[in-house]
């Protein structure tokens, strides 16, 4: 725990809480700036379906009271903040009796698993490829071969997802096209279920990893090459250290630092971008749920998911922030 001082941890925790508060406040304010309100929208939808609903005005008033939309704004805000703190997100508007928190918590593990596995794999593979591309001692044929692994970077990942489904699920029939696990399996710690989860996960993970690792590889390659000119690299060579040690402890070790910062910055985009992947693979995660929420104009569901995305991203950033001073001892000294 090199530079992990209490002040640093406290400051990062403060930033974490501030981010969440700001995010929660914004998702409270934005829907209220829009014309109309969700209850009226829902009742009008019901009206469109059923043709005519008796006492619609009373229904709207009753539901407003039920959802706490009748009080003054600050009362709503306080109630909202209290609910968010306890992760009580109320009822879903589109599938009424189910609660938003229940829906989210059944979807959350899938997204967390999918995104963490694919982000970590993409980060590791991309940085490994980039480091080898930039290191002059790597045989020329490997360095010539490596860039071909990055050609998929220019393809949007949902396009690659469709391609992968067509190739591996439809043509070759090696892997299942959609879902997170096979039908008729009971979720739990049993091998058939785990095996099925892995099989279902390969294509979505692959489509994210293959399309995003080029970003890491190019950044890493640039860092490694810049690093070559550093005085400590020359001194390391003068010391007669083994090339593998110079590469890992002096080259990669120093080049990875900005990459970790970039990872923290890109986390928000990763969480948002997963929506399309989950949609294509009908993966029962948060992205898929968010898609359903948007299609059904389910405000409480969208609000809950966006809040969870903010919470998740902020948590991941916090973890990386706490990891950085361990990687780079200089960080906690910077104001």
């Amino acid at each position, binding site marked *: 725990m*090199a530079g992990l001082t209490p002040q640093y941890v406290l400051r990062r925790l403060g930033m974490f809480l501030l981010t969440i508060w700001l995010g929660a406040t914004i998702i409270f304010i934005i829907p209220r700036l829009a014309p109309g309100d969700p209850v009226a929208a829902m009742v009008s939808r019901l009206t469109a379906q059923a043709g005519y609903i008796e006492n619609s005005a009373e229904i709207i008033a009753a539901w407003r009271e039920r959802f706490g939309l009748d009080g003054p704004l600050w009362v709503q805000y306080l109630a909202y903040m209290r609910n968010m703190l306890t992760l009580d997100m109320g009822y879903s508007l589109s599938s009424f009796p189910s609660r938003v928190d229940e829906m989210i918590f059944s979807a959350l593990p899938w997204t967390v698993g999918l995104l963490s596995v694919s982000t970590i794999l993409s980060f590791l593979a991309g940085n490994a490829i980039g480091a080898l591309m930039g290191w002059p001692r790597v045989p020329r044929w490997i360095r010539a071969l490596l860039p071909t692994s990055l050609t998929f970077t220019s393809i949007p990942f949902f396009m690659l997802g469709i391609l992968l489904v067509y190739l591996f699920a439809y043509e070759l029939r090696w892997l299942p096209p959609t879902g997170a696990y096979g039908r008729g399996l009971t979720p739990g710690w049993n091998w058939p279920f785990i095996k099925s989860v892995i099989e279902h996960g390969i294509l979505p993970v692959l489509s994210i990893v293959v399309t995003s690792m080029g970003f890491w590889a190019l950044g890493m390659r640039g860092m490694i090459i810049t690093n070559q000119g*550093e*005085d*400590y690299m*020359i*001194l*390391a*060579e*003068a*010391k*007669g*250290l*083994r090339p593998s*040690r110079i590469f890992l*402890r*002096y080259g990669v*070790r*120093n080049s990875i*630092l900005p990459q970790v910062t970039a990872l923290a910055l890109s986390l928000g985009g990763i969480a948002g971008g997963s929506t399309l992947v989950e949609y294509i693979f009908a993966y029962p995660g948060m992205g898929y749920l968010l898609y359903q929420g948007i299609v059904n104009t389910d405000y409480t569901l969208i609000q809950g998911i966006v809040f969870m995305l903010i919470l998740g991203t902020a948590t991941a950033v916090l973890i990386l922030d706490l990891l950085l001073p361990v*990687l*780079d*001892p*200089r960080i906690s*000294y910077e104001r």
Partner: protein
Amino acid sequence: MSVNFAHEIDERRPAGTDQVVLQVEGLKVYYATPTGDVRAVDDVTFQIREGEIVGLVGESGCGKTTTAMAILRLVQSPGRIVDGRILVDDVDIARLNERELRQIRWTKISLIPQGAMNSLNPVMRIKDQIGDAIETHEGRQPRQALKERILSLLSTVGLPSRVYKMYPHELSGGMKQRVCIAMAIALNPTLVIADEPTSALDVVVQRVVGETLLDVKNRLGVSMILIGHDMGLMAQLVDRIAVMYAGHLVELADVYSLFREPLHPYTQLLIDSIPSIKERKPLKLTEGITHDLRNPPPGCIFQLRCPHVTDKCRTVVPPLLEVAPSREVACHLYYDA
């Protein structure tokens, strides 16, 4: 000729033994450019004796650092060693394969780098950076023994033991430079190359680092090549001085004679240009321009700036010859005498 710094020179200093530890013969290092090779080091020959400090001076870009880097085979691309022999204990470094080269680096020749500010790995503790040099060459060490060894190295260069656990960014420039000195002597090398060890430091710290170098040399009897522009520091530290101009060695002499009576016209200009506290004088070195290093003129390398240039200088290359005991100079003016 004024003798600005001669009073600082201690003539009683032992000038080393006659045992030669480094023999550089006909070293040529060229940098490839699109318009031809730049001859950064062109046919340089000298030797370093056991226990002596040789200063390597000359203006920026004259090939001092390139010479030093070539001795360690660390010339960075697009530079390359074109020709020459670099003998350390009868082993020609220029001919070694990579493995043999790694083994000889730091055990025989170590480096105190230019700009110690950036020469330490920012994410490794000092102990690990000194330790990895030791363990790479001597194999895994018992933890306690290694720790004591590193602590004693630190105390040799006058650093407190708390430096052991510190990171480079926690140290001042002078402390980093002394860490580099401690690292350079960790394996008791035959030769230490100090590449402008004081250039990035303020004058007070320069003096401390200079004293540390001298102390290390006296205690360990290590030979040193000291590269720099600082003639004052040279006068205090070195036994002999080698003067380089445009990739050539133009004069090599013991420090006292060189300051008292510089022979080569370039050395004369160099010593004359040392600012004096007592008198104001114009800087003479700006006269004339250096030739294009890609296309040196025939004859003497200094002919374009030399105040004593003759027709012979424009056609015949003056070799570095011993014109008096321990005085070598590459100039036609002195060969007949």
